């Protein structure tokens, strides 16, 4: 039985401590925004979750390229793991955005360019899982998955830049806002520190979850190999 690496245990501990600290900063260190009130605090983890979603899909695309070059299945496992985490965090990003929008935009949802591209991105990666589940041959599944993760990655920069390229009501954190954006606010030093620490914390959460998920992927491969061996 594979034992848990010491470094992973350390990463688990550091990640939990960072999450507790980030949560404390969000609620007790960052000041309340003057107009929006308490709901603005959702912003810190909303953006951080979106960041993890996009980084995950980038890792999946890189793993896809690595798989196509090497044909090593560890890259397929890494790509699948990254996509799974990306879907979960992109979903958090979309749902929390909708909750924030209700009191700020007076609607749960609007087909704004940023919201639309983020939803399309999420659906593209859900389709990745569906595509994989429909292919039985592991090599073919890995090859198709790799190509899909690379092509699907087009949706990521499109989502990121949508609030900068198109007319939108979605606020932009870094860079200039569309004059029509609603819910914009000036970040104080404490808000900026909380925001940056939340981004760092979620990056650690991503690394930690990815490691755990890859280990499960490897375990699943071993089980599959053993099952095939006993069936022969």
């Amino acid at each position, binding site marked *: 039985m594979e034992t848990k690496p010491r470094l992973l245990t350390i990463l688990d501990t550091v990640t939990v401590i960072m999450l507790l600290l980030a949560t404390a900063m969000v609620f007790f260190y960052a000041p309340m925004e003057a107009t929006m009130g308490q709901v603005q*605090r959702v912003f810190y983890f909303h953006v951080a979750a979106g960041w993890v979603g996009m980084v995950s899909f980038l890792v999946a695309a890189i793993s896809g390229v690595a798989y196509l070059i090497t044909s090593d299945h560890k890259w397929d496992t890494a790509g699948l793991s990254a996509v799974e985490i990306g879907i979960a965090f992109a979903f958090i990003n979309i749902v929390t955005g909708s909750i924030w929008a209700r009191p700020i935009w007076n609607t749960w949802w609007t087909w704004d360019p940023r919201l639309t591209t983020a939803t399309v991105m999420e659906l593209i990666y859900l389709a990745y899982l569906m595509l994989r589940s429909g292919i039985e041959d592991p090599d073919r599944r890995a090859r198709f998955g790799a190509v899909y993760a690379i092509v699907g990655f087009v949706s990521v920069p499109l989502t990121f830049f949508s609030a900068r390229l198109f007319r939108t009501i979605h606020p932009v954190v870094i860079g200039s806002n569309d004059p029509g954006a609603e819910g914009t606010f000036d970040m104080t030093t404490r808000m900026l520190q909380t925001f940056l620490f939340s981004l760092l914390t979620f990056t650690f959460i991503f690394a930690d979850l990815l490691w755990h998920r890859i280990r499960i992927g490897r375990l699943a491969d071993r089980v599959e190999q053993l099952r095939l061996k006993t069936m022969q």
Partner: protein
Amino acid sequence: MFLLQQGPAETSAYMIAGYAVIFGIMLVYLISLHVRRRSLRQDLEMLQDLEEKEQ
């Protein structure tokens, strides 16, 4: 929306809902990882036992 408003809007319920979603989804994902790992370990042990019996 906030043109005639004085002071911050009362939006605490939305904040609570937002963080409930964030921690809820993360918790569900962690549980799913744990369940999958445990089930795979059980499968592995069973298959290893079968393999030993066959030899």
